[in-house]
């Protein structure tokens, strides 16, 4: 395999797989497993947000699709009697189903209006969860006693998902599935075009790229993944409240994604892991944490707008002279 892009993709993915699957072998401490599970869930959210941002759109309603997935799965299980293993995917589809018309409408408007309309949608969703259909969504008190995933029968095995380690593995598998799709896309023509659209959607359009469609696909796929994460959140957390899907958690996602870097699929990984760990140290100092994150976000956008992931590249360029090298073509399997 001579394509350096592909090598990098596989290496990164391999690292992710080893780290996530291997963690419980290193420690079974419930605290660490908890934090790690949160990191993995946040990774699905930030990597899917980054997919949308790679086409140049900041979707302030991303968290709302997580919420739609969460409530959908909860209601399917608690009211509809479905198994988690069905409701999980239906939750993702529900989020995607809402994303299609919402994205279809929101993406018609340009830049600044798009942030605001997506923010408006997110507030509408949150208010609906908080104040309307109280019989379904629990109103201001939310929903409680959401059951954990029911046992899964695979071949002759019976897997239960009651303990933290078991839930951790479930999240790992979900993350690795999502990451497989996202990494594959980023290193393919889709990724090439998405990032082109981000740089100049006018130019992309005039060379024949149907920009609206790519943005919509990213939006719907990203929302589907957010829905999956939401379903996991509901059944592992076992409590749901509309404030879980409001502006503060959304801004946190933006911070994780942007500080890591939106230029490629690995940026959010760096950002999420680093900042979640920092956040754990600052657990008791909630307001200091917010202050720090806000400040770091500002500094990052001013000084290092491409995020932490661009740091090695920048340092490397300072140290050696620029050498023209064999360029990497995007697209797997392309022989040079």
């Amino acid at each position, binding site marked *: 395999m001579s394509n350096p892009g592909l090598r990098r993709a596989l290496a990164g993915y391999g690292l992710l797989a080893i780290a996530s699957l291997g963690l419980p072998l290193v420690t079974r401490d419930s605290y660490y497993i908890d934090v790690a599970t949160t990191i993995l869930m946040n990774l699905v959210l930030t990597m899917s947000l980054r997919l949308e941002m790679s086409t140049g759109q900041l979707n302030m309603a991303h968290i709302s699709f997580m919420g739609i997935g969460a409530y959908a799965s909860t209601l399917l299980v608690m009211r509809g009697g479905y198994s988690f293993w069905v409701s999980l995917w239906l939750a993702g589809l529900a989020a995607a189903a809402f994303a299609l018309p919402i994205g279809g409408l929101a993406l018609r408007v340009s830049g600044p209006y798009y942030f605001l309309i997506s923010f408006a949608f997110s507030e509408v969703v949150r208010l609906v969860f908080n104040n309307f259909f109280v019989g379904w969504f629990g109103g201001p008190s939310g929903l409680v006693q959401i059951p954990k995933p029911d046992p899964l029968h695979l071949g002759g095995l019976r897997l239960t998902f009651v303990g933290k380690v078991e839930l951790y593995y479930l999240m790992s598998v979900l993350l690795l599935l999502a990451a497989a*799709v996202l990494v*594959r*896309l980023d290193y*393919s*023509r*889709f*990724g*090439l*075009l998405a*990032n*082109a659209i981000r*740089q*100049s959607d*006018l*130019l*992309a*359009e*005039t*060379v*024949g*790229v*149907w*920009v*609206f*469609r790519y943005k919509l*696909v990213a939006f719907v*796929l990203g929302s589907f993944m957010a829905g999956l994460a939401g379903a996991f959140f509901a059944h592992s957390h076992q409590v749901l409240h509309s404030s879980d899907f409001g502006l503060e958690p959304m801004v946190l996602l933006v911070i994780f994604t942007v500080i890591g870097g939106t*230029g490629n699929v690995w940026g959010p990984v760096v950002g999420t892991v680093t900042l979640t760990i920092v956040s754990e140290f600052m657990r008791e100092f909630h307001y200091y944490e917010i202050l720090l994150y806000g400040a770091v976000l500002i500094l990052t956008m001013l000084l290092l707008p491409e995020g932490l992931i661009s740091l090695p590249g920048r340092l490397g360029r300072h140290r050696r002279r620029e050498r*023209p*090298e*064999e*360029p990497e*073509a*995007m*697209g*797997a*399997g*392309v*022989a040079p």
Partner: protein
Amino acid sequence: MTRRFGGLVAVADLSMAVTPGRIHGLIGPNGAGKSTVFNLISGVLPCSAGEIFFRGKRISGLRPSEICRRGVARTFQATTLFREYTVLQNLLVAAHLRAADGLWPSLVASPAYRRKEREALARARELLAFLGLGGMAQAGRPAEKLPHRDQKALGIAMVLATGSELVLLDEPLAGLTAQERAEMLRALRRLCDRGLTILLVEHDMKAVMGLCDVVTVLDHGVRIAEGTPREIQENPAVIEAYLGAEGARA
């Protein structure tokens, strides 16, 4: 075609026809509406009135990407490139119409997808050579680091990569030295000989008259003359328009 911005008529009832296989020039004093015409044809701006046809089919009202798909591509006056991308990546994006479109092919990387990617890559390399962009040594350079002449060449290469038959060039000679201009003119002539149809906007009168088969003159959004370079040079209305502009500036 007509284009109005609020109360301002940028282009008024312009009718023009571009013959295949020719080089057609569009000239006029500053603010005459030339870039607006390009925006109208390429679908970036909608017509306030009127229609545009390409090969007998209506293209006005279509998305720019659809218009490109039909065979019309353009460059921009302020050279627009994908700045973070390398030269090669820019061309690969522009070669999009030859590659597999959409989510599924990228996800699944079928043999057809791979083949099309190889073709796109081959085409990109061909173009690098044709426009003198220094071949593979240059391919890996980020587009924003290129000298001006190469950036312009890349812009044109991208348009060629789309495989369009009608190519709209917005001031392809701007900012080039005399020698670079001569090279560019030769390249454009060669492209036309290969069957491409070119419509260009230019301020360099000598170049336009030397290169173009037909010239349309625009002033304040209205067509004031159309014909061969010789006819245009002798047209009193044209001379007036340019002198008028000069006079106003003096």
